[in-house]
């Protein structure tokens, strides 16, 4: 199944205004401690990092660990410096990588 992620940000806001960004991604967040019905250990499969860049500049980053539930949702705030492109990247175990972008216009 293709990677599914939803990135929500206001399409426009005043310059200098604080806006809320919401990022949700479909991911099992398998801890590596659980076993299947046959007793075999399920290999760890986590989203390890989330990184948000606004026109290339790092504005928010997070490390995720085994205690985070499946389909992790993160919201954070950003003071809008100017119009630009917000890109959120998720990276994790088994070479997992996904990015979503949204353009925010400063008025």
């Amino acid at each position, binding site marked *: 199944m293709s990677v599914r992620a939803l990135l929500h940000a206001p399409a426009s806001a005043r310059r200098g205004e604080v806006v809320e960004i919401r990022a949700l991604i479909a991911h099992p967040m398998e801890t590596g401690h659980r076993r299947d019905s046959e007793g075999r250990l399920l290999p760890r499969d986590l989203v390890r990092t989330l990184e948000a860049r606004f026109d290339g500049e790092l504005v928010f980053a997070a490390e995720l660990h085994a205690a985070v539930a499946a389909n992790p*949702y993160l919201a954070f705030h950003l003071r809008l410096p100017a119009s630009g492109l917000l890109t959120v990247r998720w990276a994790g175990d088994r070479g997992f990588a996904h990015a979503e972008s949204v353009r925010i216009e400063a008025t």
Partner: protein
Amino acid sequence: MKLPGALAAALALIASLAQAEPRRSGFDDMSPAVQALQRDDTQNPAMLWVADGQRRFAADCATCHDAGAMRGVAARYPAFDGAAGRVINLAGRVNACRERHLKRPRWAPGSDELLAMETYLGHLSRGLPIAPPADARLAPARELGARLWRQRLGQLDLSCAQCHDAHAGRRLGGSLIPQGHPTAYPIYRLEWQGVGSLQRRLRGCQVGVRAEPWDWDSDELLALEAFLMQRAAGMALETPGVRP
């Protein structure tokens, strides 16, 4: 003339035990945090399935079906499928359409693809009253469903009605017993860490009373679905719901 009053009170008590009224969606009794999760589409994790279903619908279904015309469809299932001669639910309709018109294999019950399509279609009917079709061919299934609802099952020897009619609103352990109206399916259940169908919920309940679950899409499960949607007729569809 005190007896009729006492009698009326006793009858009202019996009636309230038989069917709790007014009807409540499970949503009404959830914690504010979980309610907020369902209310806000930008937080609701089931929207991942909706977005996926929308993509699949645009790719596979939109050549024949207009998404706008699909509003209300999810509120009318289960329905009777004349071609197959049996009751089918919305997932069954999607699979029948895939087989007959797209000439593609059926999606497995509980698969992410099927749940995504079902969640997307349900989401299109959000807010509409549940409207079971007035089709006489559905009557036998509804009767069977009503009988199964009252049938004691499993090692715990419990029927659906004993909890969800007679004791709805009370607690089983720490959890509130809902009235069991399927208003929000497919739901994102926090315990499942994913989206699941009404059949998954019903099978889970059967395991809970230590009975052997009925097969996916068995006559029994479809009959119970048909009965439950009839029982919830007129209540607003909430898909995609979030439940604890």
